[in-house]
């Protein structure tokens, strides 16, 4: 029933527009803009909700209740916080590179926005069905490194600078195992199209055939999103808030929301690549595919939060050592095993 609700809306809108005599070319453009605006709204609303969820999960793990007063069960707490932050003065540090300083909190939202365009949220539910989806996704995802770094540099603060430098080192180092982990999946499917990758998990999810890749991806993903145990970029007990130290009011909130957008991307990508995307497990088809996607995504996000509120932070040299000495060889070994496995399976004819 709810399966094609979004597809239905799109068809209805298209029909409405062509009914009104809009030419086909404009029709497509308008539909694309509508889709992008919807995605932006989706990211923002989701990020707000995730902040709330993080606070609740964290509170529950710490024997507390968390926000409970604003709205039912404190649901509007983050909205109220955003309202408060909007009213705050934006303090401009002396000697800061103002253009870069003020631009970065806005620019930080561009990579998530670009990425969400290609993610398949459900059956036939993808804004832009791209042939090189995975490649595009990884390319855009690494853009945020430079934004963090620029924000740190422009702040004219030593904590920010240390944080920015850490972010570059960390993100570049962990990009490699992240990509190498995905390579196993891509070798099996032989495609970079996200929809096709989801489709090819019909018989078995890749989390079962590629467990090591999944683990490497999970760890590298935590590092990519700067979350504990890899939250060195913020490292609040060491370098205050890293690149965000000098940001106040909404500037800080933007970084904060972008962090959650990034978490969403990593989880969504994990869902697509390893957890079968929008595919329903155990034949539970009566739940719409997009709901399955979100369920899996939130499960992953919960895992991220769970880990965050359990583990301490790793040190910067240990981080680099772990990335290069453990994760990269592990990912490479996984690729090797996958390759050999594919050859053997093909030879005995279990897999075409």
């Amino acid at each position, binding site marked *: 029933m709810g399966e094609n609700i979004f597809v239905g809306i799109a068809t209805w809108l298209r029909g409405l527009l062509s009914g009104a005599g809009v030419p086909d070319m404009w029709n497509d453009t308008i539909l694309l803009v509508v889709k992008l605006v919807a995605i932006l709204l989706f990211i923002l609303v989701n990020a707000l909700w995730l902040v709330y969820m993080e606070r609740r999960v964290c509170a529950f793990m710490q*024997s507390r209740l968390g926000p409970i007063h604003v709205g039912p069960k404190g649901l509007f707490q983050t909205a109220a916080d955003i309202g408060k932050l909007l009213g705050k003065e934006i303090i401009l540090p002396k000697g800061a590179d103002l253009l870069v300083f003020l631009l970065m909190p806005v620019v930080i939202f561009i990579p998530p926005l670009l990425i969400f365009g290609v993610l398949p949220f459900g059956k036939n539910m993808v804004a832009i069905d791209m042939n090189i989806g995975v490649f595009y996704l990884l390319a855009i995802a690494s853009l945020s490194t430079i934004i963090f770094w620029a924000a740190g540099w422009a702040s004219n603060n030593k904590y920010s600078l240390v944080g920015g430098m850490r972010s570059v080192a960390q993100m570049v180092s962990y990009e490699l195992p992240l990509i190498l982990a995905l390579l196993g999946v891509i070798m099996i499917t032989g495609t970079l199209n996200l929809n096709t990758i989801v489709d090819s998990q019909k018989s078995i999810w890749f989390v079962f055939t590629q467990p090591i890749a999944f683990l490497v991806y999970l760890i590298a993903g935590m590092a990519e999103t700067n979350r504990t145990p890899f939250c060195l970029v913020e490292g609040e007990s060491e370098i205050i808030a890293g690149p965000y130290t000098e940001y106040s009011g909404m500037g800080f909130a933007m970084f904060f929301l972008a962090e959650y957008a990034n978490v969403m991307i990593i989880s969504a990508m994990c869902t697509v690549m390893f957890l079968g995307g929008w595919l329903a497990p155990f034949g539970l088809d009566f739940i719409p595919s997009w709901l399955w996607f979100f369920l899996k995504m939130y499960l992953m996000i919960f895992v991220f939060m769970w880990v965050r*509120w359990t583990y301490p932070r790793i040190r910067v040299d240990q981080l680099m050592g772990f990335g290069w000495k453990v994760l990269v060889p592990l990912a490479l070994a996984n690729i090797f095993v996958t390759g050999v496995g594919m050859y053997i399976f093909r030879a005995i004819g279990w897999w075409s």
Partner: protein
Amino acid sequence: MKTETYTLNLGPQHPSTHGVFRIILELDGETVVKATPVPGYLHRGIEKLAEARTYTQVIPYTDRMDYMAAMLMNWGYVAAVEKLMDIEVPERAEYVRVIVGELSRIASHMIATGAYGGDIGALTAFTYTFRDREYVLDLLEMVSGSRMTFSYFRIGGVAADLPEEFFPAVRKFLGELPAMCDEYDGLITGNEIFQARTKQVGIITPEMGINYSLSGPTLRGSGVNYDLRKVRPYGIYDRFDFDVPLGQNGDCFDRFRIRIDEMRQCKRIIEQALDQIPEGPIMAKVPKVIKPPVGDAYAEVESSKGVYGCYVVSDGSPKPYRVHFRRPSYINLGYLGKLCEGWKIADVIAILGSIDIVLGEVDC
């Protein structure tokens, strides 16, 4: 590659300096070349204030030094005045002192444990220890009426007897304490990331520890068996059977672990004290206006941070002529600069946290 060093001002406003405390770090990349600790942001001149107060009126000020274990701070001062006046404290008062003192030590070690977890990044540990500390504070509130600055000790005894409802409550708490300690062990001590962060970091050798006059868990982490309660038992500590946990390597991990072990030993002491506590008065016969004879006295107690000493000089008037507090945090901090050299920024936080300072005590 030739690189230049730069100076980073860690504090006085920093989340993990445990108060207002500044370390000027000279850094090469992330590696510390030179660290200069700068205390004094919380200096209130308690020693000078004490000279204008009567002997009893100084007691509330001692609370404000190590406000995490205020009972023990009271004890040191009171012990010095009692030594000066040669007062015999009644048996029951001694037992009450031991019970509340050890409870205070548990509260202080819980903060140290949780705050250290927080320093390393495990914020959940922080809330767990604070949650459990509330039980201790409840007990101490029951006894003294305050939750943090108790002012419970008096010269010659304690302010009030233990209330009836205290005994079942403290037994209940002690019953739960091992489970609490196990939880901290499971969440922090056993964690591999935590161990990677703290093992072999900031090593204090026994020789250096003694040379720098360190005391408390900071010194015992290096394996030096120097606990006043065992070495020179004051009060009635010679009647209790307990162990002194010692570390082997003198690294941050040992210093941290000892505190959890000490909490377990505190439980043993309190249980024995509860079993042995006699009936009787809780105050010695002390004149209304306390006028110690001319002279001076130095008394020490083992506070949660280390050896807490108090030097009192009397000129025969009702006001102390001179009071000096030997604050363990302050002297333990003296080694910080040397200890941090060659480690990363994150290690500076780990080392500072493992020393477990309270700035109220450092600056006095």
